[in-house]
């Protein structure tokens, strides 16, 4: 009990030094938490993916289209419940900095495949009725202040020209991980326009989305679809939605690795800061530790005093960092909503933060503690006065 009391009192003896170390640790935890949140936001699409959805694309590359004529064959494949299709449109709203994902989709089947996108029935009916209509995710509509009935013009990049759309509905995610930043419009509008301006590009889709009746049979269904189109002009490659998204993520793997490395570097830096604090603290108190040993306290008491003090400092820093992470993440969420549909602090990040407090506190104080334990009492007492 007296050791615990001394740990707590010792931790705040040098208020400025302890305060600065706690602050530095809190900032490191904040940086670590945000970097971890960026990584988890990166994988949000994978988490939100459904095991019962498959994506069919051109076997050569995603940029090559598939004929619309595959649709009927795919939807009649054994094990398929629903099939839909679409194109990455790549339109720009006013300027490129306003990036958001926009797709031309077959609306009825697409919405059936994505029950996590909740759209009021009347809005859905309007969307299905008007080929120039589009629906937007709640966050996207909020970002640009769009309201139902607004006309929105996208400048085509893959499909040239100015494309006017009217907002017919705003969907909400059924779960927190659902992407509420999508811009979805009717594929018929794209195809009809292409028939006029670029007939050779009409009748083609970028991908098919396939709902399977039994997720356990996904691999069989995928194999059957790919077999069906083997040796055709446009062979297919079918994979689960999660694998499809992971394919995109792996393109940015280097960035994720850099973020991971930076996270570790942040921890190593703060480890040296805390280690320096503990080395100074231990050097100052070596006489006191010698006195305690003289009175009969053992090396383990000394060890507990030093490691305990470091753990108090890192724990307070960690808690402060965790508290700061939430508002900081909320700020980042607003600023990065175009890139990360969700930017929520994962509970595992908090567990990591607390683990880092224990790890850094123990590691930073280990060597000073061992030195203090090993010092001869007579040598320690000579440091006093």
């Amino acid at each position, binding site marked *: 009990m007296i050791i615990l009391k*001394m740990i707590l009192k010792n931790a705040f003896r040098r208020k400025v030094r302890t305060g600065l170390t706690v602050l530095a640790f809190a900032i490191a935890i904040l940086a670590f938490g945000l970097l971890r949140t960026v990584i988890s936001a990166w994988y949000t699409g994978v988490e939100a993916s459904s095991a019962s959805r498959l994506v069919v694309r051109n076997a050569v590359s995603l940029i090559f289209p598939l004929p619309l004529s595959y649709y009927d064959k795919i939807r009649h494949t054994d094990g398929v419940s629903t099939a839909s299709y679409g194109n990455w449109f790549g339109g720009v709203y006013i300027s490129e900095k306003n990036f958001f994902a926009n797709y031309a989709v077959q609306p009825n089947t697409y919405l059936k495949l994505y029950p996590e996108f909740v759209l009021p029935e009347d809005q859905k009916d309007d969307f299905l009725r008007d080929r120039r209509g589009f629906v937007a995710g709640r966050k996207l509509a909020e970002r640009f202040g769009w309201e139902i009935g607004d006309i929105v013009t996208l400048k085509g990049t893959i499909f040239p020209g100015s494309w006017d759309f009217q907002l017919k509905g705003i969907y909400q995610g059924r779960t927190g991980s659902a992407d509420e930043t999508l811009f979805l419009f009717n594929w018929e509008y794209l195809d009809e326009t292409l028939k006029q301006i670029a007939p050779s590009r009409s009748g083609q889709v970028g991908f098919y989305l396939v709902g399977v009746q039994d997720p356990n049979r996904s691999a069989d269904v995928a194999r059957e679809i790919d077999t069906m189109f083997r040796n055709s002009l446009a062979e297919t490659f079918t994979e689960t939605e999660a694998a499809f998204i992971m394919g995109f993520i792996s393109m940015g793997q280097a960035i994720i690795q850099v973020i991971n490395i930076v996270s570790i570097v942040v921890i190593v830096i703060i480890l040296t800061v805390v280690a320096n604090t503990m080395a100074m603290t231990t050097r100052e108190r070596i006489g006191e530790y010698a006195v*305690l040993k003289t009175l009969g*306290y053992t090396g383990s008491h000394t060890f507990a005093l030093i490691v305990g003090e470091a753990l108090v400092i890192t724990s307070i820093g960690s808690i402060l960092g965790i508290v700061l992470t939430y508002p900081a993440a909320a700020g980042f969420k607003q600023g990065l909503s175009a890139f990360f549909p969700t930017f929520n602090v994962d509970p595992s990040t908090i567990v990591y933060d607390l683990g880092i407090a224990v790890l850094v506190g123990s590691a930073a104080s280990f060597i000073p503690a061992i030195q203090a334990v090993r010092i001869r*009492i007579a040598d320690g*007492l000579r440091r006093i006065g």
Partner: protein
Amino acid sequence: MESPSNIVEIRRVSKCYHRGDLVVPVLTDITFDIARGEFLAIMGPSGSGKSTLLNLMAGIDRLDTGSILVDDTDITTLSETELASWRSSSVGFIFQFYNLIPVLTAFENVELPLHLTGLSKKERREHVEAALRMVSLTERMDHSPSQLSGGEQQRVAIARAIVTDPLILVADEPTGDLDRKSAADVLDLMERLNRELNKTIIMVTHDPHAAGRAHLIRHLEKGEFIP
């Protein structure tokens, strides 16, 4: 045959310090006894080995050769853990610079050695209050060391030294950092402890006035006692 009245028996003790390749002898073949209830002062110039001898008797340093028996326990054969336990129950320490723990109150400083015993909180409080009463500091028990004068701090240190009722009290220059008045108070107190409680006190000092309070003065020079 050793006399049963001796509380400390030192036999052929030698101790060297190593400074790199250099071996510096500090104590050479010291043999002497300290009687139970003795108040002994050890004097000598700086570097004569008096503090080293005190540290060896108190079990906070290790000798090279020889043996030291305190109340029939050969402390040179004890392990570090055993020695720590022995120190906590058998030796009371009084240092030149008081060596109180700054973050603890006077009461908590005196209580420190008692946390290593099996005493209950109530028993510890009784012991601490008795020790503080002995040094006339009960009214300042809740003060931190920084709120006490040097003389008061040394009296708290004495209370801490006696609170476990140790076999011997060792004092290393106990008045070395005090003004004349405070030094006299501390020496009065040590005399009382020796006279009324029959405590064996071994004191190292440069100060002839302090040494004059002891029953016996021994002079150490270049690691050997001189007649």
